[in-house]
């Protein structure tokens, strides 16, 4: 890549060597922390994934390198593929629902009177502020089989009886609840970010589109989305990463009900394998596979983002 590409033209003047060095210097504190706290354990993790490393090794037994055995164990294990598929489908559903709802809420905020907009913003901030663990506990309480408010409210509809309905025992329903919780918590970030982008689009452009008689969908497709594409791209990357990695919500929800074996996602599976069962080598290998997978899934968007940076 040429310098020209990296730096916008207005800044494209030759830079002194000291300035380049200053750039690096400024990165030192962050890089040092990242290298120490992420880099070194990451290297350990990769080494671990090629070792027979169980609880006995934690307490000092001899460590043996076993090549790719952990990897072949995983890749030939049906359980792993089930967890993987489940995680991918779940993440896809949550990313799509979060993006759709988030975008709609953002468009809504851009459109309604100020008083309503403030109300929506307050609601979003409140949902956003709630810690993950708290959110799961509270939602779990609302979905409680015996005393949950949802079963009560649904049963008020004539002809509907949800008393004693267990929302978590069926895996599909379990993931429905999980998706609801995660979407509820993720929409604020997406909506507020996209809304922030929307406010940057000049009013005249929107007005012009109105006068052209463009429909709402056309305006979004032809005007708003192209202008905000960089924002959408980065938000999607982050959602993909966060939703594929989801741990706390599923783990805490499993504590409240449901079949654990059929509701494990990758994050929980790694945790159960390494810390739960003490199979650290195996857990390490799953983690490595997971990172490779996530890179593959988000490669397209990352490339996009890097291209956007050049413009």
């Amino acid at each position, binding site marked *: 890549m040429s310098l020209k590409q990296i730096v916008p033209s207005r800044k494209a003047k030759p830079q002194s060597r000291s300035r380049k060095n200053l750039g690096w210097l400024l990165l030192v504190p962050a890089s040092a922390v990242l290298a120490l706290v992420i880099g070194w354990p990451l290297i350990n993790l990769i080494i671990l994934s090629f070792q027979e490393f*169980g*609880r*006995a090794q*934690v*307490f*000092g*037994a001899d460590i043996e390198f076993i090549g790719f055995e952990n990897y072949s164990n995983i890749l030939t294990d049906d359980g792993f593929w089930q967890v993987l598929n489940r995680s991918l489908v779940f993440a896809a559903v949550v990313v799509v629902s979060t993006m759709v709802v988030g975008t709609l809420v953002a468009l809504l905020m851009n459109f309604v009177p100020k008083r309503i907009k403030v109300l929506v913003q307050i609601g979003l901030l409140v949902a956003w502020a709630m810690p993950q663990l708290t959110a799961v506990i509270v939602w779990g309480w609302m979905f409680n*089989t*015996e005393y949950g408010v949802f079963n009560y409210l649904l049963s008020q509809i004539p002809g509907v009886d949800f008393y*004693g309905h*267990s929302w*978590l*025992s069926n895996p599909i329903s379990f993931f429905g609840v999980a998706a609801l919780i995660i979407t509820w918590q993720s929409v604020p970030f997406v909506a507020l970010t996209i809304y922030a982008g929307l406010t940057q689009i000049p009013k005249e452009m929107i007005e012009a589109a109105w006068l052209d008689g463009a429909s709402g969908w056309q305006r979004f497709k032809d005007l708003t989305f192209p202008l905000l594409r960089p924002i959408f791209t980065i938000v999607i990357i982050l959602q993909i990463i966060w939703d594929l990695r989801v741990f706390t919500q599923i*783990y805490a929800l*499993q*504590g409240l*009900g*449901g*079949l*654990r*074996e*059929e509701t494990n996602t990758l994050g929980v599976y790694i945790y*159960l394998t390494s*810390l*739960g*069962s*003490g199979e650290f080598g195996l857990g390490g290998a799953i983690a490595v596979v997971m990172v490779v997978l996530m890179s593959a899934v988000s490669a397209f968007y990352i490339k996009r983002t890097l291209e956007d940076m050049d413009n």
Partner: protein
Amino acid sequence: MMKPVSLLGQGALATLMRKEQKMRKSAVVAMFGVAALTLVGCTTAEDTTSGSTTDNDTSSDSATSEDAVTGDIRVWINGGDTPDSAREYLIETFEAENPGSTLTIEQQDWGGLVEKLTTSMSGSDSPDLVEIGNTWAPGFTSAEAFMDLSPYFDELGGDDLLPGFVEVGTFDGTFYAPPYYAGSRLVFYSKSDFAEAGVEVPTTLTEYVEVAETLNSELGTSGVYFPGKDWYNALPYIWENGGEVAVNDGGTWDAQLSSASSIAGLELVKRAMDSSNAAKDGDEAESWVAYCEGGHSMLSAPSWAAGLLVPREDAPCERSADDLGVFALPGADGGAAQIFAGGSNLAIPQASQNPELALSAMKIMLSPEYQTIMGNNGLVPALTSLGDTLGEGEIPEAVSAAAANSKLTPASPNWADVEASGVLQDMFVKIASGEDIADAAATADAAIEDILNG
């Protein structure tokens, strides 16, 4: 008393156990007619020690085990089962016997404890003495996480120690973890419900289920309260029908849940669960509340739960104390059923900085005096000779009957992983929800073999 292995701590009973310890204690003490116990607030005790801990921190850190006649040791006690009076006794006795040393009790929660033990005992900040759930002892003994206690076997109680627990604390002929206490489960019932439905206390397991069904159909209550995740209470059905969870066949574990005998047991479990109004995927944590509200006619619970099933000072109960009856779960043949023996073992981590002092504390915890306190509080003492400390009366007799016939889960180093994976809970939830029993059992068998032989 039961430990949910690990993670979610949703093994139910633990939750039940940990709840309202203070209330329970006073209630149990009253039940057992032991009035002379002075309950000392544990906060005060802990405050004092933690104060001195800070003062002694430097000295204890620099002290190595060789010259460590004095030091500060940290003891991990889990949940609220250990009574305050026992904690107090431990601290006072230890500090009297080891002048200049201090003992700090750090109460841990059962949830997430396997993880904490794994990391902490492998690092420099290891506790000096730990309490572990009996079923996961093999997972740590096989990893050589604990100090070899074989030379001290006799000093610690010897043949007087609960044999099943000694077995589980021994690996490859080396003795690592003596028992701490055992729990026992009893069936509690409402006498008035029995009278109303016209049923008698059952004498066999099948009769017991029939009684539950009658109660459920006559009164609409939970015949026996039996939520789907309650696998501890479901195991006796399998055992009494001649089934097993898994057997060791020449070094390989063979899961037995789908054997004909086990299936017969599971079918009985299904009938019992059908007589229950409990959530099909619930755990047994809240059983006594609904009992008090008149929702259950019978429930199987740890012996000390007796104190929670009657009106208390700050918790109303619609059922009176006179109404509460109790019996040991009946077996197939009429005697007491083989019940799951929950409980704890004690161990000294290899990484302990003060193993001698830890051993001294362990001896105190296994002394007749200390174990008497445990017995007086409704916990089955680690020393079999102290069985009578449980007291006399209906409940202690039922406890003894039940404890005499208790049984453990497969003694495999990987058993803790089976518990952690939730496979048994999953199976019983499926059965409770009406899925095919043979299918659920076959799935569970495959998963269990995978873990035990993995």
